[in-house]
């Protein structure tokens, strides 16, 4: 299995942590891991993007037009990173509703057979009182949709193993909440 994932957003949204979940998942299911991350100045509120390639890859960067999945934790960062998605790819965005997204672009994505799903992960996390777990809620949601090539159980196990003790409970709660919402779209 070869899968390329882009995780995008702004500094402070836990993008590197989300990337860690998928890299550990890859390791768990026996895939090679390659990827690259933004560190340094951009972490101060600038654009942050992580590339993750699971399978037989040599280079840490994903080429435009070849990514299988895009997770975006910020609406505006989504637009900048859509170019990475391949025809038929998946796009999960932290956004109140798809109506808020640019209509022309949505239509274009449709023409490229790209599945676009908006989920109010930040709203859910805010309601839970742990705004930092919006990233986990979005991943949980994506798992619920049944569109991912990963097993729910593997993802959850990995989340348990990489979460800090203090965050474990809220992370699992965000994941489960997102998962249930995702399932409703089936």
């Amino acid at each position, binding site marked *: 299995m070869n899968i390329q994932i882009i995780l995008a957003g702004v*500094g402070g949204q836990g993008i590197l942590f989300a990337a860690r979940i998928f890299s*550990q998942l890859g390791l768990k299911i026996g895939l090679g891991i390659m*990827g690259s991350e933004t*560190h340094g100045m951009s972490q*101060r509120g600038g654009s942050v993007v992580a590339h993750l390639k699971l399978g037989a890859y*040599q280079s*840490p960067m994903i080429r*435009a037009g070849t990514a299988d999945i895009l997770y975006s934790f910020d609406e505006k960062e989504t637009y*900048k990173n859509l170019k990475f998605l391949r025809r038929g790819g998946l796009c999960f965005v932290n956004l109140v509703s798809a109506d808020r997204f640019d209509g022309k672009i949505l239509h274009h994505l449709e023409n490229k057979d790209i599945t676009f799903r908006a989920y109010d992960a930040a709203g859910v996390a805010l309601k839970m009182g742990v*705004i930092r777990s919006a990233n986990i809620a979005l991943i949980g949601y994506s798992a619920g949709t049944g569109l991912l090539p990963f097993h729910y159980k593997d993802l959850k196990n990995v989340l348990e193993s990489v979460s800090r003790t203090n965050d474990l409970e809220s992370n699992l709660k965000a994941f489960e909440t997102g998962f249930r919402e995702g399932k409703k779209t089936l």
Partner: protein
Amino acid sequence: MGKGEDIRVLLGNVAIARGIIEAGCHVMTSYPGTPSSEILPAAVAFKKELGLDTYIEWSVNEKVAFDNAMAASWAGKRSAVAMKQVGLNVAADSLMSSAYTGVIGGMVIVSCDDPGPHSSQTEQDSRFFAMFAKVPVYDPSSPQEAKEMVKEAFELSETYQIPVLLRPTIRISHGKQSVKLTPPEVIARPADFKKDPGRWAATPRYRFILHKKLNETLSQIQERFEEESVWNYEVGSKREGPLGIITCSVSFAVLLDLLEDLDIKEAVNILKIGTPYPLPQRRITDFISRHKKVLILEETDSVIESQIIDKSKVWGRLTGHVSIQGELTPEVIHEILSDVLRKLKISDLEMVKDEYLEKLVKELELPVRRPTLCAGCPERPAFFAIKRALPKAIYPSDIGCYTLGLNLQAVDTVIDMGAGITLASGFYQAYHQDKNDIPIVATMGDSTFYHSGTSSLLNAVYNNARFILVLLDNEITAMTGMQPTPGIGVTAEGTEGQKIPLEALIRGCGVKWIKTIDPYDIEGMIQLLKEARQYTKSEEGGIAVIVARHPCIIHYQEALGECRIEVHITDECNGCRYCVDYFECPALRMNEEEDRAEIDRMLCVDCGVCVKVCPRGAIVPVEL
């Protein structure tokens, strides 16, 4: 996974640290800087995990780090020093000289390059620096390879008694890969410095002899690099062909994925070079002779290409086939390859660029998301006060989070570490010569001041310069990921070191006017700046230093403690944008529909500082 194999997903810098530890390195030093900052903390973590007694220190700057590591090597131990590429400029004096004197125990210099650049002031290529200094270079193409190269670099360094440079680019340093770990070597090396003045204290006459010896050593190393090795090898099924590509570092990896992806592996042969200096010339000449044209793909500059003797068949940066600046991203390499394959009539690749999507996104006119000081950052009110107190001053600044004072129009220059003060004294003297006394407010962070502020400041005092220096002391090296400073006296390993307070250093530099304030007190800060300006103008005056001290809001999460002030915006707000444009806190934003400012609760940390910012007093504490 084999039995007992330890495979972990590691950041390239962590893999490099692991290589340093696995090689049995005894002493490691560093000064933080993106993209190198994660190496030293990872070495500390491995040391602790494995129960080793490696000596590891954050040094106050790169030259200091270099010399400390070198001394350990001269005493027979293995040592490593890590820095970013512009840090190597600071350590250049030591580097140049160390190539002549050589080393005893293996010494590896890690200098991380930043093609792009993503987080640096230049795109300089450390391989050129190594060539300039005449030290061998290893150029890794993956985190795993970086780890293995570090280990060989130690061996090479020890065998030939020469310091060796490892040059990862940012995509290797911040790349992630599943990496196979091995247990560390244990090498007993009690410190044993053998006096040899003709070498360690060589005068120019002996330097000539050392230079000759260095050149002989380099020839021997070049011979070794000519041999078939895991660093230098060919990829491709045929020996000959119309197009050969010589490549290195991450560009090699990008090329492999691209050829696989486009299913054109048969179209080209590749020569991968992991040791760009001294360059295995015979290997290169032989490869070129078997191809009609040879393309060179390397970052950031033309180090391999420049060294090739007969360039008649070579296409690269020097011939304009590859851009002479910027990163070789997969898209860029795709484009170069398509052009070259078309020119040579080998194949016509379909470019999959989605131009329509690009056009649609462009039409949205998305704002460029510039980095900004965090909500609650104490540097923001300091800059705000500077701008308010002395709006017409020149503002020389420096490298760190506070570079982002740019956004508050309170930073005019950012050139290199320490230049906030040297430019201030330089500007002063330039105007003073014309009998013009202009206000100058320099800003510098605590870590930068410890790095290279003292020599700048004492020079300014000595030569009677007059300006205001605001030292932004957040008690940590924040931008690069929270490394400790001498100001808090905590060492790299988290143990207690000697505390060296900023005020004592400033006094030691001869400054007589020193005041300390918490910049959260904006009005107090404005008042102090005005007093400081008076002092710089008074007959007995001189340089005035304000230490604006408040802990980094990110690192010391508890810093606000009981002092949290939740605020809200009242109907007094008339949408003047003053707070959004001039205070520029990410937690304050405009609600364009209602034409008024609002608070982003997700980002606000309740510092309450903005209460003093609104000209109409519309930002007020929430009544409990």
